[in-house]
């Protein structure tokens, strides 16, 4: 728990503060120091054209995090809107929308991401769209079930009998209650979106190769891995693993805390 919080804090600090302060050029090519193993000057070594792996990983995490965050937000907006529509309209629209959710869940997401990115030249926008359009179903499910339970609460009934229209009820009474759920779902979606970005970039279908994204770095480092230079491809992977693990540990704790009964049953 404490380790997870610290990991996230250090990474966040590195990503936010390091680049403006250090003023080092991560794309600086220095062929004299190409393919160096970890040393004091380069804690995680240098890649095959002499760029510092640690510095580039921090920049890569920055790029991947941004793309992941935007993609997660896109999927939350789509999912939130569809879940809200399904939950508040009910009846036939609800059933139809839930079938659409089932349909999307049956699709192999990465394959569709690949399909979309391939047809629209690899770019950050294509990655965001391909991840966003295929990952909104979780948010839709969460929002829908929350709306269904909110609908039966007295304050909603009071608003409806007080003459409030559907839009007003949704805006004033439902959305404030849904927001915390949406925020949590977005936070949990970010690591997954980062994963998708790196997977696409790793396959050569994601961000343009000159951008330092974690997936691009792992892809670049593949060749030197075969000659024994493990750092240039394996280190960027650690920068994906660490924040993902930290977020999932914190989420697990949060879940345990919010349902203490379930936890105590397991402890028995």
């Amino acid at each position: 728990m404490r380790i997870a919080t610290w990991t996230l804090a250090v990474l966040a600090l590195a990503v936010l503060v390091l680049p403006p302060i250090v003023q080092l050029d991560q794309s600086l090519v220095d062929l004299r120091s190409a393919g160096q193993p970890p040393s004091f000057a380069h804690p995680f070594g240098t890649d095959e054209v002499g760029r510092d792996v640690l510095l580039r990983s921090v920049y890569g995490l920055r790029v991947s995090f941004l793309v992941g965050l935007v993609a997660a937000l896109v999927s939350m907006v789509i999912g939130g809107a569809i879940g809200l529509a399904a939950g508040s309209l009910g009846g036939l629209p609800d059933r139809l929308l839930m079938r659409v959710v089932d349909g999307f869940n049956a699709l192999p997401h990465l394959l569709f991401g690949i399909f979309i990115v391939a047809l629209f030249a690899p770019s950050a926008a294509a990655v965001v769209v391909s991840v966003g359009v295929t990952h909104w179903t979780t948010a839709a499910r969460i929002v829908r079930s929350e709306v269904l339970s909110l609908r039966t609460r007295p304050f909603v009934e009071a608003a409806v009998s007080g003459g409030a229209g559907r839009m007003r009820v949704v805006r004033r009474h439902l959305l404030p209650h849904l927001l915390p759920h949406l925020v949590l779902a977005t936070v949990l979606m970010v690591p997954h979106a980062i994963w998708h970005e790196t997977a696409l970039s790793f396959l050569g279908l994601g961000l343009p190769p000159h951008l330092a994204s974690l997936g691009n770095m792992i892809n670049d480092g593949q060749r030197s891995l075969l000659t024994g230079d493990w750092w240039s491809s394996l280190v960027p992977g650690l920068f994906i693993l660490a924040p993902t693990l930290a977020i999932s540990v914190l989420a697990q704790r949060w879940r345990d805390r919010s349902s203490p009964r379930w936890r105590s049953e397991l402890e028995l």
Partner: protein
Amino acid sequence: MRAVLRMVAWRVAFAVPLLVIVTIVMFALAQASPFDPVRQYLGERALVTSPEVVEAIRANWGLDRPVLEQYATWFGNLVSGELGESRSLHRPVTEIIGERLGWTLLATGSALVLMFAGSLVVGTLAAWRRGSWLDRVITGGAFANESAPVFWLGLLAIWIFAVTLGWLPAGGLTDAASTTISPGDVAAHLILPVTVLAISQSSWLVLYVRESVIGVLREDFVIGARARGLRERTVIVRHALRSALLPFLTLLGARMPELVTGAILVETVFSWPGVAAASVQAALAVDFPLLAALTLLGTAAVLAGNLLADIAYTVADPRVRTLGVG
């Protein structure tokens, strides 16, 4: 039996429209795409080819027809099993899929078996010794594994077992020097990709087995079995594990999309000559006929996996049969 049939009919009634919608969406995306297949086909010759020739190629490929007619032709061909010709490999798509599908089925099938067996053993061990260091190592490992990208795991395995230790080949189907495909050679090349795929897919299963065995161990019939003086192994394997097993089948069906994803990445990392890796090559070459066929194949695989899981569940659990769920 009737329940099974009804469930199958229900599933198929959902799957067919879904596949049709997938073809529509793919076709619409291809239409909206800025890529011009004729220009792609001509390559550098596009600069010196006269517009009349380009128009002739367009007409020849049917690209000058109305969009709806183009879709109808393409869809009609798909239904009759005519998948078209790959634009990058210049061979029929059916031929490419035919020679690659077997390798993918071999790799993913072996990975599934390994994943099942391994997760059952490891998850049960963790549940049996709950709270011990062993349990902590297993749960911690499962969480870490869930966070690690599968292609990274693959590279890690290559670095350890192929580069550093030199025990296993780093990729491919056979040794570069060999001209024939011998079973022993293929098996050696199969070990790393299968293990990595199995491990990458097994985190949830290990945690799931652990939790459900812990739950079952508290049930009366397990306490009863213990009270009758049965051996610990018999209690765990015959009583606890058996009833903890059932819900997996549906869960396994729900994990099919992840399996396809894992197969794509693992096959690419290990240069395994399967259909999943071919989808990446098709995407890199913007090879629409091949990519569309493989995307459809992937979706169909997920739907088929869901169906099989449901059938197995209905057959295995008599309660579902009588209640007629689904």
